[in-house]
């Protein structure tokens, strides 16, 4: 990475600011990993690749809802941004099949609805 100085930091910020829609995030702090987030992350990555979807997948920190780990946040164009809790393999595949494709949200697993700014 290039050296960051007082004068170029804003430019670097701009360069790295990306559109945050069309991504799936998996909470991968100790709490998430302990609940099996690793497996879900790998599964989601594979399934998205298989279907050739225009969705990026990201590891992120803990969202705080430890009672419902593993947590998967899905933000795709045209659908509300939500977090799924207690995601097992079956739910993960449903998420890729229905939600990541922009079709619809999955019943019975959403634990948080994030309002867009």
């Amino acid at each position, binding site marked *: 990475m290039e050296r960051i*100085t007082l004068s170029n*930091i804003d430019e670097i910020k701009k360069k790295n600011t990306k559109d945050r829609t069309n991504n799936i995030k998996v909470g991968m702090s100790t709490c998430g990993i302990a609940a099996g987030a690793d497996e879900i992350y790998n599964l989601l990555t594979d399934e998205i690749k298989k279907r050739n979807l225009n969705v990026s997948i990201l590891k992120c920190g803990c969202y705080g809802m*430890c009672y419902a780990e593993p947590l998967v946040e899905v933000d795709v164009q045209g659908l*509300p941004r939500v977090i799924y809790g207690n995601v097992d393999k079956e739910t993960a595949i449903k998420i890729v099949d229905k939600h990541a494709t922009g079709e619809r949200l999955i019943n019975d697993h959403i634990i948080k609805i994030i309002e867009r700014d």
Partner: protein
Amino acid sequence: MDRKTIFIKDTNNTNTPQTLAIYNSFMNYIREQNLLNDIQIVRTEDVGVYAKGVVAKTYPVVKIFENVTENDVPAIVEAVKNAAGGGVPSRDKQVRRVLRNCGYIDPESIEDYIANDGYQGLKKALSLGSPDKVLEELKASGLRGRGGAGFPTWLKWKLTKDIVADQKYVICNGDEGDPGAYMNRSVMEGDPHAVIEGMIIGGYTIGATKGFLYIRAEYPLAIERIQNALNQAYAAGLLGANIMGVNFTFDLEIRLGAGAFVCGEETALIASIEGRRGTPSPRPPYPSVKGLWEKPTFINNVETFANVSYIFQKGAAEFAKIGTEKSKGTKVFALTGKIKNSGLTEVPMGTTLREIVYDIGGGVIDDRPIRAVQTGGPSGGVIPVEYLDTPVDYENLTKLGTIMGSGGMIVMDTSDCMVDIAQFYLGFCVDESCGKCAPCRIGGFQMLKLLEGISNGTAVKEDINRLRDICHATQKASLCGLGQTAPNPVITTIKYFEEEYLEHIENRRCRAGKCKNLVIYKIMPDQCKKCGICVRQCPVDAISGTRETGYSINTSKCIKCGQCIEACKFKAIIKE
């Protein structure tokens, strides 16, 4: 434009949730109205509202409809269809500042942090012109130490800055040892650069060239992510010489704690970094005068540093907008115990315990009545249910005899015994006492003996006064915070729940059924269906009888493990 959506959930904790029934009425209605492609109906696990019947949350115009019945369905669908209001506004009590990036950015990417205002705070601090200006900004924010005691951060920095020395140090205390608390771990794992940015600003302000992150070895992932972030910061010229092109050098290094609770105390922590045995030493001199290797040093908690980077990124005025008069900003709590939604929550200072427990935590498991909330870990006290409407800030908690601590919050219900709780926390502190000073080493041990006596039914009434005396002496005479605060759980439980102590002593009774020597297990013949499952579960063959005659428990053999109670589907076994 996002698809119009109605989220529904039955928020009453009944055995027959109405979610599906209402879901079907919504589906039927939108099918009739031919709106299937315009509006989606989604059943959720949680809508952020509790005990308000079936709740419908609409989107993208976010409104909450409570106690929804079939009759409300058309009106709600119409409201969503026309993007009209109706209902009540949704209110999220959480304000995410320290956790602003946790769960949002990739913690292993400095680029992602920079894209979200990362290191703008450092830029601002370096551009202010002088360290004094940085202190002014920090003072204006009103930030107080998040490690527990609530000492004004700017003053701590100023005291360290004002001393002339050839070398100064900055230390980040990441030795989070309270049982049930993990706020710092989440920040270090989810947003490591925010902590580092705060430390660099601190180093610049006091004129330090070196800093240490003291992290407990039990947090391997936090250590890995912090190390990764340090490497990235070095590569980007944010650490090392000429930071951001300014004539300022600052280095950071990780030091691992080996699992001693007392090393969270600042003088013991310093000893541990120096490579000595982690025992505290008397203050003064304070670390700001003679700290690490006898050089001026300031120590702040992980959360404090994360707040510092927020303050410089967004401005002191923005930070001070929320909170109470004397406690500004937010506090992260680790909500655990008998709570439905355990986890981390960040709320403005001044939020009441009731809001935290019921509106964020979703209430007590199985809807049992709440009895008390314990804050501050083993150094804190127990707050009884009468004070549940107390706004949480440093002063109010101190008044109640407890402390903010680093932010552990444990919810207790009627199945918790206060003597048992006091014994647990005191036991923890006795285990972790370093043994250097007598009040903590001996006082703690004697208090524990007395509590064991109460819990075993061998105590006398006078023991409560003895406990009070020893508590007082330990508080006053101990060398460091561990001993001074170790009696807090005992003092507060005696203060607020004395009748429960007396019950243990005089009636030999533990109402929660936790003190094993005071309870006996009994099978109620009326409820017993004579299935015999309990016999198979009992590990010591204490249950005898046949399917014809019914069963009984031999109390002299029973070890009170509770397995029979769990196994009995008819709730025929009780503790008395």
